[in-house]
């Protein structure tokens, strides 16, 4: 039986359809964005307002990147044995001008990345149990996503 796919943590990104998006917050009527919406801080120049929920740009440019050659400690869940190094990119989202962290998809390492490269959001399995695949957002180079002829 196929496992149900659910977000590893609720409320941070959408998983329906082919175009997942990060769920951010915005001061209504402005271009001040926050991620995650409820943990992303606040703009001290505006009063006590409720941030409205917005879906953030799917595309952005690499601000920097690194590869962890040692398995991160819990609560990270190591799924490969032996551990396959994970690559993390900090990406400046196109419209929001906001740098967001995320893992890169498997197979993308430091040699495949450079500062300024365009990437887009996708989802991938972070870890699984008997009944569920737990999903997370990841970055994928746009060039790698182009369909092959």
């Amino acid at each position: 039986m196929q496992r149900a796919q659910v977000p590893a943590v609720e409320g941070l990104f959408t998983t329906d359809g082919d175009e997942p998006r990060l769920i951010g917050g915005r001061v209504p009527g402005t271009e001040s964005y926050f991620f995650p919406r409820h943990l992303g801080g606040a703009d001290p120049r505006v009063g006590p307002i409720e941030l409205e929920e917005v879906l953030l740009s799917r595309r952005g440019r690499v601000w920097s990147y690194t590869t962890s050659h040692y398995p991160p400690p819990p609560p990270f869940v190591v799924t490969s044995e032996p551990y396959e190094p994970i690559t993390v990119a900090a990406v400046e989202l196109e419209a929001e001008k906001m740098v967001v962290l995320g893992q890169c998809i498997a197979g993308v390492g430091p040699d495949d990345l450079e500062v300024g490269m365009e990437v887009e959001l996708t989802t991938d399995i972070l870890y699984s149990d008997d009944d569920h695949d737990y999903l997370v957002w990841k970055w994928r180079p746009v060039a790698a996503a182009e369909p092959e002829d």
Partner: protein
Amino acid sequence: MDEIAVLGVGMHPWGKWGRNFTEYGVAAARDALTDAGVDYTDVGFVSGAVTVRCGYPGYVAGSIFARALGFTGAQLASSYSACASGATALQVARGQILSGACDVALVVGADTTPKGFLAPHEGRRPDDLDWLRFHLVGASNPVYFGLHARRRMDLYGATTDDFAMVKVKNSRHGAHNPNARFTKEYGLDDVRNSPVVSDPLRLLDICATSDGGAALVVSSMEWARDHGYRDPVRVVGISTVSPTYPDPVIDLPYLAADSLAGSATATIGFKESIGARAYAEAGIGPADVDVAEVYDLSSATELDWYEQLGFCAAGEAERLLRDGDTAIGGRLPVNPSGGLGAFGEAVPAQAIAQVCELVWQLRGTAGARQVEGARVGITVNQGLFGHGSSVIVRR
């Protein structure tokens, strides 16, 4: 800002001793009291720097240290601001002194750290950013260090050998420090051949976690004068600033930086603002600094600080390093203690230890690692969740 006097400094050597942190703090406090020639019963305020990793909230640093030294009725406070805890504890002590609530204060920080990566406590906590970054992204502390190091390479043409040279320099300094944990002098090849931890950073580029303790005895200038202290080292600036929104630079433990989409102008960067506040309080600028202790969580982090403290323009830190300016004997020695590279991080003690080193330097008692003629020193560090820390001392 009015000044206070540093009458005494003390440290328990850094290491991986595995004993109760109280022991290190008490040893450092007794050293500082002896160094000051101050009777413990004259201390009116004990300011403890704490880490939650000491165990559980029952460990309240101020009272733990005060009781272990013997309760005297002194007033107490405990400060937790991650790596900046020590500077916050000093800030609180200065406030007590300058308000007239006490004449003499004891500032103490100590830690016992677990082996390996610093990591969050157990349990599922999706409302805790520190938990989310590990769980969802695997973003341990070295991941953030690696991101900033790679950025230096891509923006400024830094090389991994530049990073390694920071380690080589600091290990040369630390070899002469009896309180340092690592006193081996490393060469470039040692760093080059150590395993990659968080690309482009290798094991020897990244600071370890350590046990250790550090303490300061501080007083009002009047009390120091009335008790015969001639020309003591003075604390002339303390910064414990937080970031100013919007701060577009991603840093631990966050998943995202602030958005610049709605802002016509960027504000001063957080790390630049830390030193700027201390300089403003002290009424001096970067050109007045003779010696600096900066928080080299990684070798590349040290290079960032050169620029963030105004020692050079952005992109020029590697040149300062290559020219030998920041080595002992150079124009502006940085981390004569050996820095975190030689100590490893004992979180709540570290910002205090930085001040201890500068006091020895300004007194001219730093022995083989002495920076000749040092009169003005600055420390800088940054605590998780937006705690700036910088102290300026002069003589």
